[in-house]
């Protein structure tokens, strides 16, 4: 495995814990606990009660994002300390904060601040409607748009994972109707996501404005490791672009498929997901020549 072909990818939320890394990665528990303690102190959240045995879906949305960020930061600290030198990184949706931390563009504390500020800005401006998101597998983008048009559903396709795997956002009612109609039209699977926020839609543009006040006054540096934008699939090269990306990420759709493809075409042939499960690995299966996925704990053990 060449050092210069490793790419790190970061999930947005924790959905499950497949394996306990403390069994095979020395120092994981200690560092994870230290970060939890630090984050609890900074955010005032009772994150200390959180453990790897907790059900991440019972955490609540904000705490889940914090936990995901902390887990990812722990992974990357251990990876970098073991000698892994990623050539490129990208964060899936709200995984951007851990990606920027890994690239030394923001400090650990700044990532927590952005997560919290984004969440509260969204709650401040979102209309009093119930919202949701769902994943849909087995339909094309054209199929999805046709279903939405046919049934007058006000939905946005907010991410493409592959030609037949998308994420859709809108009001809860429209999402529920969409799921029923999508199944009728031949979707292999639809899955509601554990969020009440329509991330990556124009509904959050005002929240992004609120967030920008925090982002533009925060200490942000140019990434020392190339970070690929999930919005534009180009390199986020300096501090100004980092700020722009953090703000735009809230209310613009992204394309994970093209992002991973861009990484692959740039020479990344080994992908490592810095999170507790392999959700991004599953999404990547449909890229031609998608490279090899190596678990982050296995990667550490290869380098130690």
């Amino acid at each position, binding site marked *: 495995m060449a050092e210069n072909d490793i790419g790190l990818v970061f999930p947005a939320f924790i959905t499950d814990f497949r394996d306990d890394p403390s069994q095979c990665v020395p120092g994981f528990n200690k560092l994870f606990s230290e970060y939890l303690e630090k984050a609890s102190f900074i955010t005032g959240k009772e994150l200390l009660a959180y453990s790897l045995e907790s059900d991440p879906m019972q955490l609540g949305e904000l705490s889940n994002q914090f936990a995901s960020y902390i887990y990812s930061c722990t992974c990357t600290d251990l990876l970098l300390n073991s000698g892994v030198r990623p050539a490129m990184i990208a964060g899936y949706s709200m995984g951007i904060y851990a990606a920027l931390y890994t690239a030394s563009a923001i400090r650990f504390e700044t990532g927590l601040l952005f997560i919290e500020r984004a969440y509260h800005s969204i709650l401040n401006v979102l209309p009093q409607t119930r919202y949701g998101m769902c994943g849909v597998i087995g339909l094309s983008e054209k199929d999805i748009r046709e279903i939405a048009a046919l049934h007058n559903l006000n939905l946005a396709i907010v991410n493409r994972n592959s030609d037949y795997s998308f994420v859709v956002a809108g009001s809860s009612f429209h999402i529920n109707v969409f799921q029923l109609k999508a199944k009728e*039209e031949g979707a*292999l699977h639809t899955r509601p996501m554990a969020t009440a926020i329509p991330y990556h839609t124009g509904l959050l543009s005002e929240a992004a404005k609120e967030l920008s006040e925090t982002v533009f006054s925060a200490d942000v540096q140019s990434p020392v490791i190339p970070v690929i934008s999930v919005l534009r699939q180009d390199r986020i090269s300096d501090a100004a672009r980092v700020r722009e990306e953090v703000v735009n990420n809230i209310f613009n759709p992204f394309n994970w498929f093209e992002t991973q493809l861009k990484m692959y075409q740039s020479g990344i042939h080994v992908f490592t997901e810095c999170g507790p499960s392999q959700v991004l690995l*599953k999404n990547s299966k449909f890229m031609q020549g998608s490279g090899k996925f190596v678990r982050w704990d296995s990667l550490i053990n290869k380098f130690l």
Partner: protein
Amino acid sequence: MAKITEKTRIEVREIVLAFFAEECEADKSQITDNTSIIKDLDGDSLMFLELIEIFKKKYNLDIELKTIGKYAVKHPIETIGQLIEMQMLIIEHENRLLELDK
């Protein structure tokens, strides 16, 4: 309409078992027709989609995913045996799969 031979049947079975053994890190010899894809193997719809793509390429199939999705709503799959049977029908009938229900 493709003719399903014994060779095809063996081939499909071998592909399905090898696929789930690798994807789910399971012992291939322990996977039987009665193995539950979700409960026993922790499989999911993305795996199903990936498997369909494998068969589409291997047998050069003319079938839309949504045709399979519509068929699967009426004929839900829970076990490896059911999945193998459905793959056989897909290879045999391709886009005319839904005509089986008429």
